[in-house]
């Protein structure tokens, strides 16, 4: 198992910028995608409810 301490881990043999730039962006994008999906669902259901309420009020 290669673990020489947190400093070594983040340095990645001098390539830390590239390695963490890669994984970092991937993580950010994945979180963003999921967050967008969740908010889109919430907004959609709110809109549906609002239009249903308006329909109910109109009756």
């Amino acid at each position, binding site marked *: *198992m*290669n673990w020489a301490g947190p400093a070594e881990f983040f340095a*990645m*043999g001098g390539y830390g910028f590239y390695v963490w730039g*890669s994984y970092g*962006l991937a993580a950010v994008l994945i979180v963003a995608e999921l967050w967008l999906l969740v908010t*889109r669902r919430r907004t959609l259901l709110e809109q549906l409810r609002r239009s249903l309420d308006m329909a109910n009020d109109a009756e």
Partner: protein
Amino acid sequence: MPLNIWRFASPQAFYSLAGKLVPWFFVAAALLGAAGLYVGFFVAPTDAQQGDAYRIIFIHVAAAWMSMFIYTVMAFWCAVGLIVNTRLSFMMALALAPTGALMTFIALWTGALWGKPTWGAWWVWDARLTSELILLFLYVGFMSLHAAIDDVRRADRAAALLALVGAINVPIIYFSVKWWNTLHQGASVSLTRAPSMARAMLLGMLLVALAAWMYSIAASLMRVRLLILERESDSDWVRTIARKEAVK
């Protein structure tokens, strides 16, 4: 009890099935991802030539494989939709596109960050990189065409046809390293030959790739559920769901 699989072609039935499946795929993605990254960072040895920079391979290869695979699946559902005319097929294709584009972008980005320290260049216009970039354009084109057409049915069918026309790009990406002298390395993993890399690296790559696959399925199923709700919003079952979620 005979399982009639065709009943899941109905958006409503598929909605609830997908809803039950999504959490499991996320769990699988998380577990496989954790395992893969553990193996990749802590078990796999440092590369003799590239040092620790090579560890980008785990996310890069996973994203690249998924970018091609998702396009293929997307094209498949487009073909099914055009042939059998099922609404859900088109919805599934549309749901896959953003995740596919995301994977393509991650592949390109991580590739650039890997290329800089190892090749000395952020980008080269070789066959594989160029065709992967074209893949990103194809995904964007697919989504743009669909968004530009107001009539949903026409949008579905036009975008589906476009996806099929662009599908020729996927084998080009895949075989580009074999057909041309490219800077990008050739295939190290093959179905027929023994792999030419350390076993721990291979294991890490496969685990992260599987994790990416599980994630893509989960995200696409979430998205297709949204599409179903949007398109079926006039129906009673959707209204029931909308009301039920308010009570929570």
